């Protein structure tokens, strides 16, 4: 397996009038060619900030970034955190591309689709206008847009939401990047269109042998396409592991809470099992486990450290790790029972 991306101990904080917001607090993860790695978490957990860091899209002076983001530029590794503006720009769209959450607002309303696509190619291949346009048509065709030559002459408002997201994907593929970051690519779309877009992403991943970093809060999406999952809470990864482990034997109370809160159709008239409470403010995180105030399993923690120390990311297997003070064995038993209850 070829490693494409290795994030190590990434910290991103923003200065605000109220204090420093630690949006990302020591995140480490890897992405290999041909696999889809998901980052899951609720709004404000730091998943988008992490992905924007990989693109180097944070404004200098607004965000303070430390740690390392080692990214493969077709074989040679570069640390995005320490690159100059020009060097990052050279990587963007070529080695790593990104598709965004809202396709309705992510395309420039005043330029034709074809020229918006071609621009992405021209930025990295100066002067090759003909090639750029040919490439644009080829990519539009590849993402399943009928009559690409005609559609390329149209404006974004003439496309539906699903078609626009296809255009965004085509745009991301213009320079055959090895890494594709998909930030909630299906959140703004109809469920039927969601499935099409996810299938398209999976197909393209194989075709281009890309690594996809999938940012989402939708566990259904994760189950469909992800190989490995990172669950984020309050700027940190609270659990990481292969997708089956996360879904069938979660080890972090937060992951379990997420799984339990997925609405189910089988049981009638049942209240949604939401996680009680609110995510903590990222300005003054509690000293202990950030999830402790909302955690139902605190009493099982033998050391009673939930309110005083932050749990480390530990695990018995090398692939499945989680943060919790409750002994792992006990968690296995408790969580399995709960999951069974919920899932029937």
């Amino acid at each position, binding site marked *: 397996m070829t490693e494409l991306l290795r994030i190590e101990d990434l910290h991103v904080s923003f200065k605000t009038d109220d204090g420093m917001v630690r949006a990302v607090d020591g995140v480490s993860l890897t992405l290999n060619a041909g696999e889809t790695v998901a980052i899951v978490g609720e709004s404000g957990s730091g998943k988008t900030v992490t992905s924007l860091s990989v693109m180097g899209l944070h404004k200098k002076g607004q965000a303070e970034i430390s740690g390392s983001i080692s990214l493969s530029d077709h074989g040679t590794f570069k640390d995005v955190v320490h690159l100059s503006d020009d060097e990052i720009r050279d990587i963007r769209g070529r080695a790593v591309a990104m598709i965004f959450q809202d396709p309705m607002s992510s395309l420039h309303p005043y330029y034709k689709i074809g020229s918006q696509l071609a621009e992405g190619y021209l930025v990295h291949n100066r002067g090759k206008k003909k090639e750029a346009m040919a490439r644009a048509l080829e990519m539009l065709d590849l993402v399943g847009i009928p009559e690409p030559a005609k559609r390329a002459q149209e404006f974004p408002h003439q496309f539906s939401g699903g078609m626009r997201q296809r255009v965004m994907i085509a745009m991301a593929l*213009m320079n055959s990047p090895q890494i594709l970051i998909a930030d909630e690519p299906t959140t703004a779309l109809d469920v039927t269109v969601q499935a099409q877009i996810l299938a398209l992403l999976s197909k393209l991943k194989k075709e281009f042998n890309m690594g996809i970093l999938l940012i989402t809060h939708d566990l259904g999406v994760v189950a469909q396409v992800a190989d490995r999952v990172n669950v984020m809470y309050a700027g940190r990864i609270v659990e990481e592991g292969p997708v089956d482990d996360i879904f069938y034997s979660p080890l972090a109370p937060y992951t379990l809470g997420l799984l339990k809160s997925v609405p189910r159709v089988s049981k009638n008239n049942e209240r949604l099992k939401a996680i009680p409470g609110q995510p903590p403010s990222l300005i003054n995180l509690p000293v202990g486990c950030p999830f402790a105030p909302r955690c139902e399993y605190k009493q099982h923690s033998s050391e009673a450290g939930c309110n005083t120390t932050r749990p480390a990311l530990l695990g018995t297997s090398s692939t499945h790790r989680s943060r919790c003070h409750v002994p792992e064995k006990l968690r296995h038993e408790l969580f399995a029972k709960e999951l069974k209850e919920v899932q029937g």
Partner: protein
Amino acid sequence: MLKFIGRRAAFAAMTILIVSAVVFMIFSFLPFDPASLTCGQRCTDQIVEANRVRLGFDKPIYEQYWLFLSGIFAGRTYGAGSAAFTCPAPSFGYSFNENACVTDMIREALPITISLAIGALIMWLIVGIGLGIIAAKFKNRWPDTSSSVFVLLATSLPTFVTGLALLIWVTIKWKLVPLSLSGYTSLIDNPFKFMQYFILPWITLAIAYAAIYTRFTRAALLETLGEDYIRTARAKGVGERVVFFKHTLRAVLAPLITLAGLDFAGLIGGAIITETIFNLPGLGRLTLRSVYEFDLAVVLATTILAAVVVIVMNLIVDMLYAVLDPRVRIV
């Protein structure tokens, strides 16, 4: 497109008709006799009555309105026999105060107002958009701060203060621009004199408007910079300069054009203060003088003209908008 223009033109014609009818009616309700206003100092009842008949004030109001309308297309002859005089089409009436056809008076005043408005428009667009771009590009740094000082000063100073200040310092104290006594020369006849004649009025108007445009451009640019599609452009690897001057500026253009078109239309209606300060015999001053002197024929004509200009500019702005913004389609 042609269909759109045709429909809008018909709509405009109707609006103008209504405006003229309303203005005409208001004048007929005024509590004084229009005929006696046309009479000089040595006035007798005979003269008043003779003028009443000559100008058609003896006829019922709808007939007067009809005479006014038909005059626009066919010209109008006042009086009969040897005392008759004709204002050829398009005739907007006859000014007794000036002893001239209103159309001729407007024909004299209009080029001055248009020159004033166009020159000022070009100036404030360059300064306003330029400063707005600089302010947005250097947000919260000294170029931004100093431009906001300019904006504050220019919006708080009324044109009669900036105009008089310019006149006193630039013309009288420093003698940089000579006091123009010779009157208006057209751009084609003598470009240099034309510039000299208009430069201070242009600056006066441009300062006031440039402030508004600076603020508008800055705000619109900063808002657009936060749009998702700007982030998309950055994610493609597009350089910051292209992001700003192509993607961002392009999105700000359409609303700016709208604003400029409407402001320009407003100015054609008459920049009364500026024209008065600099003694420019334009439409604004013509209107002002006619109001003071109850020269109803002129007030009526300039009011209708102002309405026409606003309507036509609106039409032009709408068409430009459709060209600039692909989402707006003309049907």
